[in-house]
């Protein structure tokens, strides 16, 4: 007589997932002074804003899970968001077998295990995608916040460079700055 039985298989797994996103762009630094002088001014300005100089000459600042890296020589900026999480997932499946026909219990169990593995992979893929979205959202949000700061850095470097250039040209008689309009007037006696 044929007897049905049901087996339940559970699988769980824990994985360490990582996701990241990064954009690179170029700062618009005017060539008012020689490139090495402009790089020095940029470095100074970045230091004031919490950037630390690395062995390779780049300036790096970590804002939580985000890293802003500026190469003062080339003006290249990269903003990187990285996020990681240890995720545990569990999957469960039931299968019905018969003692006289069909696959044996062992092969049925193996088949269900394979299906569970696929289920787990799918769940981890979804988690990976969620983590990726999180990293990208963080990056986008940070870019919005970073933009005014980077603009200020560029403006400050330009101002400093103009002042130095004026000093090289002659005696600076008067400097007037209007923070609102951003205009800078330098009177030089040559």
């Amino acid at each position, binding site marked *: 007589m044929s007897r049905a039985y049901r087996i339940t298989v559970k699988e769980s797994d824990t994985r360490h997932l990582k996701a990241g996103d990064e*954009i690179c*762009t170029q700062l618009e630094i005017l060539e*008012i002074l020689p490139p090495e002088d402009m790089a020095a001014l940029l470095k100074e300005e970045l230091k004031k804003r919490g950037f630390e100089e690395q062995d390779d000459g780049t300036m790096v600042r970590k804002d939580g899970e985000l890293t802003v890296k500026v190469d003062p020589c080339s003006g290249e900026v990269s*903003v990187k968001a990285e996020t990681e999480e240890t995720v545990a997932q569990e999957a469960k499946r039931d299968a019905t077998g018969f003692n006289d026909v069909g696959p044996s219990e062992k092969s049925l169990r193996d088949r269900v295990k394979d299906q569970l593995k696929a289920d787990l992979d799918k769940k981890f893929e979804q988690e990976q995608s969620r983590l990726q979205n999180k990293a990208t959202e963080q*990056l986008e949000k940070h870019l919005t916040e970073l*933009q005014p700061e980077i603009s200020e850095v560029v*403006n400050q470097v330009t101002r400093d460079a103009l002042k130095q250039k004026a000093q090289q040209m002659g005696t600076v008689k008067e400097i007037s700055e209007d923070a609102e309009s*951003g205009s800078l007037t330098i*009177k*030089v006696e040559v």
Partner: protein
Amino acid sequence: MTRAAVPPRPPDPDGPRQVSKFEFNLLRILRFMVGHFPADQGMQLVRAAVSRPECLSAGAVDLIKDTLGKACVLFLVRQGAWRNDKYLRDNNPTPGRVWERIPLEERSLLFSRPVLEFLLWATAEKVNDTKAAWDAAPKALTPADELFFWLAFDATRTDPDLLAALRKKDAFRLNPLCWATFPGDMVEGDEVTPPNFAPMFEGQRAVLLECLQPHLTHRWIRSERMKGQMGDWKKMRQQGRAEFAALQAFLKAAAEAKRTDLARFVLRTNAALFTSEMTPVFWTGGLQGSGPPRLADRLDTQRSALAVPRQMDILEGWQNSALNVGYFDDGYQASQMWKADWEAVSGNRVAARARATVEMLEPLRGPIGGTPAANPAVAPGDNPEGSSG
């Protein structure tokens, strides 16, 4: 382009020549590839197989030669050879139509065996589904062969199966003309390896490029306008990357060969696009959905879409170099010609507009409040305010 150097031909028989069914198909395929036969019928013939004979009749060979010679010359003349234009020859501007500028021996088209072998193969086999190997070593091809293979590829590339089959073959994959015209069709994935463009700027290949300048301009303008209707992010990225790599390599080779006149189509394409201020939406407005999940990939796709405007940087560099060439310097005439080309399309304005459009895509470059306006008092080259100078 060719009128002399043709061997004496036997008198034509009365009435149409007799050819076999295979030869008839071959001739129709040839006429389709050079643009003298309806594309839908030509495409059917290329996709069909016919058993190949031992050899071709003398009459058929004669017709093939005749068609190749006349159709290619007619194509070149129509596309731009007829124009009374000015191109560099030995680094000096030379005016006139192509047959006035170039001696006959330099513009006589010579087709070699690979062309006939390709036609036999394309007639006998289903090009999109055949195991019969055919290819031609690029080094063995004459400039006229390259021109023919370029025409053949252009005629068939609208069919995705034929495109996939042909672009794997070296005769097309390494054909610089194909890369200079439709680089997006030459790649399958993200990996882009343009061919060596240097030979394009020498001898007869350079003459062909001169003839094709208006044609290339027209093609690139059309391709740029089509981008606005492209919805697939991946395809846009692949095409843009291929275009960027191909144009960069092309312009580098042009500069090294001192044939900046042969890059006019890049300048004129940009000039036609930037008749007014543009935004990147012109190129990327058709992209569907939110695109790849990573911001880096989305940005890369958008940057790739603007491959053509991004070339203006190089052209502007050429203009700056041309401005610094003195009357007694080498290449003064050539630099004067480039400056004339640049000014004819208001190059400075086009370059500024292209730069502004490209920069709109760049993150961290939004509207800047309080940008210090560099006072003319300290601008290099100007007299500072209050100075005695």
